[in-house]
């Protein structure tokens, strides 16, 4: 046998024997890695599966290979341009047209007083071109259901209106019979939607009295192709340049969705990495305990002739084995987590979503787990080199750390570089990865400094209080104490959870319309000029309020300084949703009270000619467009081009507003354009009366749409709550990692505690006294960690609210007190459970063995 084989033999044999005897001690190590890997694999799988089921098939989402969108009727010129390009293409297989708008619906039965906002879609065969349209019960959609004013509706509409299949409802000026409900609509993602989806035929849509002089009617021509549509899309864009018609291909949608999902996945993975890094801190702690406990065995092995490197290899192999097994267990936990998510959230997640952990994600998780084990245990294991065999003759206790140890410095730097590489890998970006690591470093540093300050302060008061409290404070300073590490780990967990809770409170408060006196309770939109007086009268009678009525005109940006948007340009296309959409614009002589001028001047009086046609642009939009005072913009209003010069840039205070317009025109420009009016009711009226008023308006003016702010607020609150739930879920993993570190730290100082308790018992201390010391010690630790967590959470919540979300922030005393109390009780409970057995050890044996 060769020498290398013999060495490997020794290393392998000893590794196996060590694992056999030490696995219980390394169980926390195993759990730290398992939970870290579990969370990273679960989060990544969840978002990948979600993206596969939603965005993976952009064709199905778009329900076509490419789509031509317009907010006006297609003009004969547009149609001929389109047909010319399509006629030359050999790949177009099929086409259809879809019109969409929102509208109010109510049952035809007069005794049923319900009403509901709906998202109406007028379709024509063949439908769908791409994707599935499945009715409730599993049957496929058949177009004959829509003939003679039939409607296929989302099941929720039956509940909202209290109607059943076969009943008739009124939408606009037409009556529709509900023929079926559907389970899955083509392109439906279950995303944020205010009203229930209703499908009717395109012909019925056109004759329902909802397309005349109406806003928000979107017209789309959809195409299915036999091949890649990129070329035909480019040709269409070229042909339609200068008009407000946009062309969208599934390839670009896929590209955009792919990017969005990848970004989300990478950010979630960083959250997972945070948990894994916390697990790493646990690993580091456990490795330190492990080396400490193995000092004598290491000395014996060295005495018997084993070199330091061989011994390090044995322990490293052991840790890698456990890291690998822990990671595998983590993958199993992730799968359990996904099943739990399926059980709990299947109704809000896409129906066809898979809940399996994919192999690629699993092996990435395992690799991460093993690497984190290696990175975080390397430095503590290096301590093995400093263990001298002479300690077997005379144990002076604790090997002195050499201050300038080159190997340790090199390994420290390598570990840091490795961690950076992992962060970059997980974030998919060097910048984000480095930012994550530096951010984590600074957060940890601040938390650590806070821990240092608090413990120093605590020491000042150690002579106060009872014997138990004094002993507890002393315990926090015992040699080898883990006080600061525990404060850092648990404080970080409390910080994440409490920051999210505090932000939730402020976000929900922001959407609570009862606190914003200027936010209307009801919006009426699409009011015709002829309807204004009567509508005002009805509202006045019901509420006593003289409503404000504002004109709105639908407009798209055609040119900026004479140049059209180039959506072939990727960066411009990414902004398509912001700058390419249709805007509701208005005109007025005065500035609103919720507006402030940032640049330029407000106009004086109406515009008289084309040279002084002016516009005011909201600050954010001016940045998106890259425009400033003096620039020229051309708008497309119902097919007519209107050129205006930017007179000023405005800031909008959205918290204090009735209506918010991105573009405000100077009077004298748009008065003759097709327009509708928006009316707002400020007065807060009870739900029953609000419903009665809405029903009265719908009966009288079927074309008018009503937004009940209470409904919107409820929908937004639901979104915020889901968001908070998701983050709190992740936050709870952070807490769990913190607790594992806590338990690991307790294990590290346990032998010292056992010895101290034995002495105290010998000196006459009774169990209740010892128990009181134990509880006081962990109570103090928890209290300090809670204070650190809440202080930093409050600071973060303040910063994010003020500077990122730009919302009002309020200090939440209840949350602060609850945060400190819960953390105290949690740490006290975990600490007491993990150290409970210490109270029952007989002192003699312990004192003899020291």
């Amino acid at each position, binding site marked *: 046998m060769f020498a290398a084989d013999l060495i490997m033999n020794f290393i392998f044999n000893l590794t196996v024997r060590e694992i056999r005897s030490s696995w219980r001690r390394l169980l926390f190590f195993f759990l730290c890695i398992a939970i870290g890997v579990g969370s990273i694999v679960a989060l990544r799988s969840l978002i990948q599966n979600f993206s596969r089921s939603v965005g993976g098939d952009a064709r199905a989402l778009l329900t076509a290979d490419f789509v031509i969108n317009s907010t006006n009727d297609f003009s004969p010129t547009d149609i001929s341009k389109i047909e010319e390009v399509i006629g030359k293409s050999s790949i177009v297989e099929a086409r259809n047209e879809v019109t969409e708008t929102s509208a109010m619906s109510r049952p035809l039965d007069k005794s049923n007083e319900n009403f509901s906002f709906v998202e109406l879609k007028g379709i024509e065969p063949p439908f769908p071109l791409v994707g599935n349209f499945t009715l409730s019960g599993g049957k496929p959609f058949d177009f004959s259901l829509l003939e003679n004013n039939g409607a296929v509706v989302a099941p929720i509409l039956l509940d909202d209106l209290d109607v059943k299949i076969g009943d008739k409802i009124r939408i606009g000026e037409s009556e529709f019979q509900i023929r079926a409900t559907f389970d899955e609509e083509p392109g439906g993602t279950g995303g944020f939607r205010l009203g229930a989806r209703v499908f009717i035929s395109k012909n019925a849509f056109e004759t329902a009295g909802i397309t005349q002089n109406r806003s928000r009617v979107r017209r789309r021509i959809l195409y299915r192709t036999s091949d890649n549509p990129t070329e035909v899309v480019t040709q269409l864009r070229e042909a339609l340049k200068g008009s407000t018609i946009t062309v969208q291909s599934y390839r670009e949608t896929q590209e955009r969705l792919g990017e969005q999902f990848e970004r989300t996945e990478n950010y979630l993975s960083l959250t997972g990495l945070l948990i894994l890094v916390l697990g790493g801190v646990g690993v580091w702690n456990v490795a330190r305990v492990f080396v400490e406990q193995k000092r004598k065995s290491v000395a014996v092995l060295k*005495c*018997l*002739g084993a*070199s330091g490197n061989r011994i390090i290899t044995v322990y490293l192999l052991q840790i890698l084995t456990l890291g690998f097994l822990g990671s595998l267990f983590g993958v199993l936990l992730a799968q359990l987590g996904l099943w739990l998510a399926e059980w709990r959230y299947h109704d809000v997640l896409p129906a066809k979503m898979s809940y399996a952990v994919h192999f690629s994600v699993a092996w990435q998780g395992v690799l991460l787990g093993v690497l984190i084990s290696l990175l975080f245990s390397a430095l503590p294991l290096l301590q093995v080199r400093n263990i001298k065999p002479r300690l077997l003759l005379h144990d002076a206790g604790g090997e002195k750390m050499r201050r300038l140890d080159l190997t340790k410095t090199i390994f420290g730097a390598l570990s840091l570089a490795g961690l950076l590489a992992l962060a970059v890998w997980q974030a998919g970006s060097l910048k984000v990865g480095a930012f994550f690591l530096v951010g984590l470093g600074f957060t940890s540093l601040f938390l650590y400094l806070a821990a240092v300050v608090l413990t120093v302060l605590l020491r000042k008061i150690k002579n106060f209080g009872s014997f138990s409290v004094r002993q507890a404070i002393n315990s926090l300073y015992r040699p080898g104490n883990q006080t600061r590490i525990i404060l850092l780990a648990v404080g970080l967990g409390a910080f994440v959870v409490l920051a999210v809770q505090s932000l939730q409170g402020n976000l929900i408060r922001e959407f609570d319309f009862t606190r914003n006196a200027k936010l209307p309770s009801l919006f009426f939109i699409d009011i015709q000029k002829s309807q204004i007086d009567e509508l005002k009268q009805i509202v006045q009678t019901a509420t006593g309020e003289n409503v404000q009525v504002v004109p709105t005109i639908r407009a798209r940006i055609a040119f900026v300084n004479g140049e059209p948007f180039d959506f072939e340009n990727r960066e411009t296309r990414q902004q398509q949703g912001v700058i390419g959409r249709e805007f509701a614009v208005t005109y007025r002589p005065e500035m609103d009270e919720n507006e402030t001028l940032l640049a330029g001047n407000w106009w004086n009086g109406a515009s008289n000619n084309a040279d002084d046609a002016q516009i005011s642009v909201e600050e954010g939009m001016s940045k998106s467009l890259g425009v400033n005072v003096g620039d020229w913009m051309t708008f497309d209003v119902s097919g007519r081009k209107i050129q205006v010069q930017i007179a000023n840039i405005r800031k909008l205070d959205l918290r204090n507003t009735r209506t918010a317009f991105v573009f405000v025109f100077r009077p004298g420009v748009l008065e003759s354009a097709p327009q509708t009016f928006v009316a707002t009711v400020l007065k807060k009226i009870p739900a029953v009366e609000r419903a009665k008023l809405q029903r009265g308006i719908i009966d009288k003016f079927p074309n008018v749409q009503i937004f009940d702010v209470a409904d919107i607020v409820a929908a937004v609150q639901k979104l915020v709550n889901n968001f908070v739930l998701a983050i709190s879920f992740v936050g709870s993993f952070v807490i769990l990692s913190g607790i594992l570190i806590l338990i690991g730290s307790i294990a590290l100082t346990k032998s010292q505690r056992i010895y101290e308790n034995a002495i105290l018992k010998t000196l006459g201390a009774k169990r209740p006294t010892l128990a009181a010391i134990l509880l006081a010690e962990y109570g103090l630790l928890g209290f300090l960690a809670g204070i650190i967590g809440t202080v930093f959470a409050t600071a973060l919540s303040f910063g994010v609210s003020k500077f990122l979300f730009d919302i009002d922030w309020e200090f939440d005393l209840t949350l602060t007190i609850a945060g400190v109390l819960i953390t105290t009780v949690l740490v006290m409970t975990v600490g007491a459970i993990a150290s409970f057995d210490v109270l029952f050890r007989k002192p003699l044996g312990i004192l003899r063995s020291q």
Partner: protein
Amino acid sequence: MIILQNVTKTVQSGADDLTILDDVSLEIPDGEFISVTGASGSGKSTLLGLIAGLDAPSSGEILIDGASVTTMSEDELAELRSKKIGFIFQSFHLIPSLTAFENILIPMEILGLKDAKDRAAQLLSDVDLKNRGHHYPTELSGGEQQRIAIARAFANQPKILLADEPTGNLDSKNGNHIFDLMTELHDQNNISLVLVTHDQSLAERAERQVILKDGRVLSDELTRNGNTGNF
């Protein structure tokens, strides 16, 4: 042959230097059984530790078979111990996570001996613990643990056996048994045996007795068992 030339060991004790061994010179020929006695703190264990390379002297030189221990690196010292030295401690120092049998195996596995398991079984039998091989150290009595430690010390067939108060933690019956076992193995294998002990009666059973006082050699004489002497 073990040679100590003017070996001094000083350690820091508070602000002062404390001399544990002061200019000690000794020669221990191959196969000799020598006992080292002296009061507590006279430097007995330190002397043994320096010979084994567990610690380095402050000055002077230690040679084993002509090679200078004082200039060796940690890994070279480990290799030296692995090949030439067996060590027995007062408090046994068995590895608690390994069984008795595995504790005996370790030095041979470090050395890479082929027939390690057979030899470990033989050594177990030599120390009369054939049936206790699968027990962990905590499951063995003090005497049994020391016998395993002796078997482990002999496992790599050392030329030098260093024993630091091997009977110090045992009652007289077990102590005598251990002593007999060591001397028996010494006689059979013709190895140098350096025994540090408090027990004068045991010390006198060696071939030569060195007495230390305050870190210096007070006397170095052949006992009645000794058949050679250099003073």
